[in-house]
């Protein structure tokens, strides 16, 4: 009997929750968000979710979109492709949103691209890989706000050229981010007359890269590029120090998290990497057009959530403002929003956006600033 009453109670609870009725007002504007709030990429999704909620609150406090309330439907895909597909279907078919922000990772973004293309709903991805929006002719409804990995590579190669470096070794992690970067490094090298003499990879959970670095050293590389977004990348500078290698180390924009600099410790001092200006906002020149946006966003985020600002939240910030600016002009018709975004110019946290029918990212290599680590902090590289 006791067991049975437990089940009855459970059944009752289920029935009650099914009777939920969440009715939305017809005149509200519905926007969907898909972030990896929990799971293996939660360090991306959490600041994105926080930022989206913060910005939506601010927009609504300032009168919403032409007097209509902005309603965000936030879904958690847990960094999982199947969940992301379900979430996009839900947002489009059940919540009837007019545009979607996210997902957070390149894999989940690629998994939902066919759906939004078919449903003709604009998607503003917060993930890095350039393939999400390229070629633009096949990605009519897809945009993205983070800088492209190809531009990051160009900044690194520019810097190398200035230093007279020709032969390099690359080391990347076997994740979506690392793999996409590795492909771009190899693709763009010839254009800059750079010669890749060693091409090594490591598992995102690896704890020692000495073997790979010895190979790079023996191949006669003049510099090393380490491409990863996982904590494991902080081990590379330490291994380099242990091997007493004196060649310069370049990191990707995936290094843009102060925790990684802290993990690398003393070995991380002086390494070079391109990143958005948000991380080194205090050392950005006062007359730079992005300065005000960056300072405002950082102060607002850090005072609201009592946590360090990250570039990832910035991608959601840019996406939501680009979207709402477009909606203020053309209303909530998905096709009109899409056309409007394609014409948008916007000063955001990631850079100065200039979208066009052939460019659905809108950022070029000037969105990156070369940064370095000095006394455990990120500062703009001046040489």
């Amino acid at each position, binding site marked *: 009997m006791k067991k*049975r009453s437990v089940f009855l109670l459970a059944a009752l609870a289920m029935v009650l*929750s099914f009777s*939920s009725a969440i009715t939305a007002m017809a005149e509200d504007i519905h926007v969907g968000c898909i972030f990896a709030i929990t799971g293996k990429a939660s360090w991306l999704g959490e600041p994105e979710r926080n930022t989206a909620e913060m910005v939506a609150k601010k927009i609504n406090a300032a009168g919403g979109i032409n007097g209509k309330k902005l309603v965000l439907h936030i879904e958690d895909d847990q960094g*999982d492709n*199947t969940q992301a597909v379900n979430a996009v279907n839900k947002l489009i*078919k059940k919540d009837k949103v007019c545009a979607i922000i996210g997902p957070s990772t390149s894999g989940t973004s690629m*998994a939902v*691209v066919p759906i939004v293309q078919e449903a003709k709903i604009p998607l503003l991805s917060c993930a890095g890989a350039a393939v999400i929006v390229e070629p633009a002719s096949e990605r009519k409804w897809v945009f993205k706000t983070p800088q492209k990995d190809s531009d990051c590579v160009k900044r690194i190669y520019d810097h190398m050229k200035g230093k007279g470096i020709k032969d390099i070794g690359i080391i990347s992690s076997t994740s*979506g981010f690392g793999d*996409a970067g590795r492909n771009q490094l190899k693709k763009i090298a010839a254009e800059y007359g750079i010669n890749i003499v060693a091409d090594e990879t490591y598992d995102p959970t690896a704890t020692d890269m000495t073997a790979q670095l010895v190979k790079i050293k023996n191949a006669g590389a003049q510099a090393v590029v380490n491409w990863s977004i996982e904590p494991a990348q902080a081990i590379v500078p330490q291994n380099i120090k242990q091997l007493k290698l004196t060649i310069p180390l370049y990191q990707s924009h995936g290094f843009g998290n102060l925790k990684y600099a802290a993990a690398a410790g003393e070995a991380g001092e002086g390494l070079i990497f391109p990143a958005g200006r948000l991380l080194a906002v205090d050392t950005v020149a006062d007359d730079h057009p992005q300065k005000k946006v960056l300072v405002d966003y950082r102060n607002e985020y850090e005072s609201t959530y009592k946590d360090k600002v990250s570039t990832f939240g910035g991608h959601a910030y840019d996406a939501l403002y680009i979207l709402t600016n477009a909606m203020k002009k053309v209303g909530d018709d998905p096709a009109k929003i899409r056309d409007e975004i394609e014409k948008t110019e916007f000063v955001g946290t990631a850079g100065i956006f200039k979208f066009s029918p052939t460019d659905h990212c809108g950022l070029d290599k000037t969105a990156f600033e070369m940064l370095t680590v000095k006394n455990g902090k990120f500062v703009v590289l001046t040489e």
Partner: protein
Amino acid sequence: MKIKDYIGIGILIIVIAAMPDLVGNDYYLGVLIFTAFNCLTCTGLCLLMGYTGQISIGHGAFIAIGAYSSAILTTKLGWSPWTAMGCGVLLAAITAVIVGIPTMRLKGHYLAMATLGFASIVHIVSVAAVDVTGGPSGISGIPRLQIFGFALNSDTRNFYFSWGVVVVGLYLAVNLIHSRVGRGLQAIHGSEDAASSLGVNIAVDKIKILVLSAIYASISGSLYAHYVLYIDPGPFDIMHSVLLVTMVAVGGLHNIWGAITGAVLLSLLPEFLSFLSEYLQGIGIRYQTDYDTLIYGSILLLIMLFLPEGLFEGLSRSLKSISGFRGKLAGRSSERAD
């Protein structure tokens, strides 16, 4: 086949036929399509685990083989999806034989560890063999399935097709269970020595059933690839293999209908939880998605504590005892209550 199974399949067909009208929203059909893929794999897994008693924590690998065969052959070599799916099935079957010959000699935990190792190897290959599998960046642009020029381009069509495949798979599995071979397999589960002494060729039968369940998984993987149109190594990791085993165990190992019940339940649970979270947010309680794991665990714990034979058997037994209890109240004898 028993009359009960015919009735079961009949009811399933009616439910499937009525479903698109019942749910009224294509979004739910999308969720049910993924449910169908899980049902298909779990049917094969149940034959292996429930009826033959061989545990496998590596079925995600067979799904991956099917999915990657379909994706690679259609996008890179331009093959027809059906030929590619056939190749996937063939490849999965061959892999199952190669893996099966050494591992099927193992028992219990050792067998579980061996299959886990196999799943891990396939996952690493899918991540690291960048030139073939696309690595972590995956493969996009997979074409849709077409049946005689009739493209599966809507959720309703995909829904009917994938559940149609499940029904066929289920029919074949139920037929097998009640055949001579099926009885042999159940004898292996009971006692390998006894089965062997009665003339069941246990070594060959175990590999045969592993091959069959690998084929189910491979087809489910191919269907996944042609529905989502993009694959990367993510959906085929070890956790997915573990989830499949959980589905079969929750529903009931010893009954194919239990496996289906478990697959449906655990595939729909995330949807139910998101429904619950919306309801709680609606009445002003902040729901964190982290709670999902907690609820998930509690459900598993409750089932293991109160219904150790699985949901399907456990619930049908409870129903019987309730009706027996009522019968007693009505003054009838309670012979049926056990």
